[in-house]
């Protein structure tokens, strides 16, 4: 019985430890929490030529905080007027500008009217895109069609700045936009979902060890 108690205790720790890499993690995020997910009501214009007379697509450079496979992307882009259709790409870096396209998602609609907070345009179920720490990547948001009437805006993040790229032809060619306020987004690994905090995991593990420890003590008596 004593051996069984120890075994259960070790099993609890093993379950806790092995579950860590399997859970979704945050590869990159500049999103805040609660009602401050991003700066609502001010952002980079994303547009086709139909309403404003010009098209603008924006690319934001980022690096991931740990190696991982992309499972979900959330973008704080708002809808102003016109056709609510965006195109998003995740690109490799090419001399400080968006390069090879690693993933592209079309005909995305923003669920958030610009000026409000804090719905996100979510792309989930992503697989097959592995990102590495220390490497520059780009997330770009463009109108689905350069000639469309889309007028949207990529809300500024609360505080992040980054290298930016600007395109006036829907992302075919890019120009440097300098180092400036970054649009709000996150990149999650392993199929997305809520990212567990380390402290929560520690609490869970401690609780399990304690519980099995108590069981073992009872069995010893």
């Amino acid at each position, binding site marked *: 019985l004593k051996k069984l108690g120890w075994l259960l205790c070790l099993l609890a720790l093993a379950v806790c430890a092995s579950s860590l890499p399997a859970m979704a993690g945050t590869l990159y995020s500049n999103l805040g929490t609660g009602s401050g997910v991003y700066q*609502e*009501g*001010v952002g980079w214009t994303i547009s086709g030529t139909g309403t404003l007379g010009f098209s*603008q697509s924006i690319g934001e450079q980022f690096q991931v905080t740990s190696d991982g496979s992309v499972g979900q992307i959330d973008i704080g882009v708002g809808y102003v*007027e016109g056709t609510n259709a965006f195109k998003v790409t995740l690109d490799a870096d090419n001399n400080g500008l968006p390069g090879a396209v690693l993933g592209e998602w079309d005909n995305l609609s923003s669920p958030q009217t610009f*000026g409000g907070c804090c719905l996100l345009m979510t792309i989930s179920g992503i697989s097959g895109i592995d990102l590495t720490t220390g490497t520059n990547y780009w997330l770009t948001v463009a109108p689905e069609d350069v000639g469309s009437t889309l007028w949207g805006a990529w809300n500024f993040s609360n505080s992040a700045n980054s290298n930016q790229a600007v395109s*006036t032809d829907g992302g075919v060619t890019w*120009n*440097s936009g300098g180092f400036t306020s970054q649009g709000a987004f996150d990149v999650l690994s392993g199929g997305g979902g809520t990212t567990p905090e380390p402290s929560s995991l520690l609490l869970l593990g401690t609780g399990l060890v304690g519980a099995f420890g108590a069981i073992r003590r009872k069995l010893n008596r």
Partner: protein
Amino acid sequence: MRDARMLLSVLAIAIIAALGSTDAAAQSWQVMSADYGVNNNRVDVTNTVRRLVNGPNFRVNNTTMGVDPARGKDKVLRIHARDGSGQMRDFNYNEGQTVDSRQFTGGGFPGGGYPGGGYPGGNPGNQFRGLRIVQASYGAGNRRGDVTGRLQGMVRNNRLVVLVNNATMGGDPAVGQTKNLQVNYEYQGQRRNTTTREGNNLTIP
């Protein structure tokens, strides 16, 4: 005596020439700002007027101004201009009157760039590195007013900080609708477009 006469003649010619050049300079007024409307319902049309005065004479109406800030009311176009000697003057034109484009120039931006020229997303054509408002409009749908000059006038030390509302934008171009401010600006050689919802602060850079 003969030399004195010649000297006086040269002097007289020089004075006449100087007067003539002063008069010519006074004929060319640089558009500093312009607004259109009546009483408190006025919108900034600086960029529109700067573009128009580079062409033929034009009539003042809602079509040429690109906006009707006070439906059903007689409106006035006010042009605030400066001549070559720095003298400021206001020109007022009632709706329906014709503006003589020849007496105005549309310049007035640092670095010599013309705000109405070029593609908003294109690269800058001059070496000015500070903040320049290339084009800005405020409104909703097709009821939008040009606020380029107004915003440029708010730039202090190459920085623009403004709470976007009808008061700061010079009027309400779309009564009852939620409006957005669209700004195309150039800073340190980079051109960008931002959108700001009515009621929010815009800070550039």
